[in-house]
């Protein structure tokens, strides 16, 4: 296992920034009524997302969940079609038919985010099965939350992947809450420790705000998968800064202000920027430039999302089958 080179380190920061700025912009757009429905941001969880996804090769597969923008962004998907998708435009990555909850960019191996909690875990497992049968060496990664870790399909998937040695990584983003529900009130035992009973590798990354820690653990899991060592359940402890979804206002205070402050104090992007500067990977100027580049990218994505037309009415009937089946 090699540690990431300079280019990779800078790319990590770039992708984390992309997620942060993209989601900040999306949040603003929801408030302004520029996005129908809502979105779930990954703000605060960038290290966990990027550290994991950047261990994958271009041809590798990935599935995600409702907290959905970070995954394809971390896998290298261009921002403009993603942003246009949130707005429901024809130029969206799914032609406007998916929206925030159902982003997918097959070109980069993103097989789809899922609005149904837990539901995409079997899909990722199946992608790993096809890698195994075809012997093409591809690895598959399923992203899901601490809440999803109580869906039975995860354990069916872990067992199947275990008996068949499928090249899949089950990546649990434990941001400690499922909507309003604290994980510890609905989770018996420790998620990562559930791996052992299913005969597969399990690990808990306690500092999910440290992109390098996440990367190292994920890399070990991906290498294990690719080399025929079978699946891994990786639990990464992290935190979301925003409400469960943008625009949601709950009457209850299920998280306290103090807790949030502590986590913001350990911001993954700020931390990693300090690290990059200290280690001489980049100068402050270079890091400033990087920030600006990402801001520009997001701005361009926003513009694209505004200019792209809405889909034509007949699009509602396309893509249901390979060919329309008639009335």
């Amino acid at each position, binding site marked *: 296992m090699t540690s990431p080179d300079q280019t990779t380190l800078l790319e990590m920061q770039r992708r984390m920034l992309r997620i942060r700025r993209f989601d900040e912009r999306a949040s603003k757009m929801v408030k302004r009524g520029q996005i129908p429905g809502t979105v779930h941001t990954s703000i605060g969880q960038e290290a966990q997302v990027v550290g994991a996804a950047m261990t994958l090769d271009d041809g590798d597969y990935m599935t995600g969940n409702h907290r959905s923008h970070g995954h394809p962004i971390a896998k290298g998907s261009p921002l403009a079609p993603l942003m246009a998708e949130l707005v429901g435009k024809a130029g969206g990555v799914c032609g406007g038919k998916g*929206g925030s909850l159902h982003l997918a960019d097959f070109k980069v191996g993103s097989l789809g985010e899922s609005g149904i909690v837990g539901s995409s875990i079997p899909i990722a497992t199946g992608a790993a099965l096809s890698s195994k049968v075809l012997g093409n060496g591809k690895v598959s990664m399923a992203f899901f939350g601490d809440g999803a870790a109580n869906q039975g399909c995860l354990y069916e998937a872990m067992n199947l992947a275990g008996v068949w040695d499928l090249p899949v990584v089950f990546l649990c983003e434990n941001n400690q809450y*499922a*909507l309003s529900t604290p994980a510890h009130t609905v989770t018996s035992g420790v998620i990562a420790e559930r791996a052992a009973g299913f005969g597969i590798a399990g690990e808990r990354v306690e500092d999910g705000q440290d992109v390098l820690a996440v990367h190292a653990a994920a890399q070990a899991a991906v290498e294990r998968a690719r080399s025929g060592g079978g699946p891994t359940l990786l639990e990464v402890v992290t935190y979301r800064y925003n409400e469960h979804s943008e625009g949601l206002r709950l*009457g209850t205070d299920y998280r306290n202000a103090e807790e949030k402050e502590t986590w913001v104090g350990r911001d993954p992007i700020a931390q990693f920027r300090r690290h990059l500067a200290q280690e001489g990977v980049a100068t402050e100027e270079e890091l400033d430039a990087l920030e600006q580049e990402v801001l520009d990218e997001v701005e361009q994505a926003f513009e694209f999302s505004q200019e792209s037309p809405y889909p034509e009415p007949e699009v509602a009937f396309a893509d249901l089958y390979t060919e329309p089946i008639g009335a």
Partner: protein
Amino acid sequence: MATTTMSFLGAIGAAQREAMEADERVVIIGEDVEANVYGTTGGGKSRKDKGDFLELFGANRIRNTPISEEVIVGAAAGAAMTGLRPIVDLSYSSFLYMAMDQFVNQVAKNRYMFGGQASLPVVFRSAMFYGLSTGAHHSDRPYPMFMNVPGLKIMVPSTPADAKGLLRTAVDMDDPVLTFEACMLWGLKGEVEEDEYRIPFGQAAIAREGTDVTVVAIATAVPEALKAAETLAEDGVSVEVIDPRTLVPLDSRTILESVAKTGRLVVADPAHRTCSAAAEIAAIVVEEAFDSLKAPIARVTTPDTQIPFSPAIEKPLYPNRESIGEAIRRVTGERGASVPESPQGIDDELSTQAHR
């Protein structure tokens, strides 16, 4: 009879509160019910004035669950078989599939299979979030598939008063009930009796009387059909609008009597077309009231496509006043003035709809 104004969602909350107060065996089970995320379990800390269910009834009876629909549904069934009367909040109707085996193989079958030994006094609430740009995973209207499962009862109220009265009946009943609440109706306000009351299952409401054509409408199609009827009245077409309120049991008698009078039928149903409730109602009528029929039956449904996210293409998919009005014209041969455009959605008061 004194009444008070209530939203649809408020009526659901009020029915739950009354039921909880009336019977200690009633418990509420579901994801995020403790924090009242969906607005039917009272306050939450900063909404104390409305009555926090957790404070009122305690954590023993307000059961915040993991995200595990299969065991939630099965455990509620098992609890119902052994003395509790659970109300299960499954939030979105699109999540019911997760527990389909429990619904079909346990909830619907246990009383029957065991020769009447099991009783299942349990209510499964869920809401259909169609028309709100939530995309294919959150917009389903799956009641037709549950109608095909003998042993379940199904309510689809369209007014606050019906929602409250039917839900009380549902909780009282020893049979399993599924509610399908159209989220677009949650904010709808209406008059509700102040005293406790119950509405029996299997009794349709005649939402508007008329003589030229019968429109059987479900969920959001009810207010839309009423709008269409209003407009068509101006053209001299007299439309009778029937809201079945419960799909199982279905009050086919009221429908057949209406068709016997009007000779014409439009069924407006937000479900997907194939094997929809509309299909069933059309089939019943052509079987049992064929001689009364003066024209083809018209179904106005959501077409057989999945639900796209983009509002530009989602909104037109569901039955609305135009499509219902057009169908009425078709079966009555009437070519009157066009009905007014639908607004983008029925108004609502809820911020909590935006989380999925």
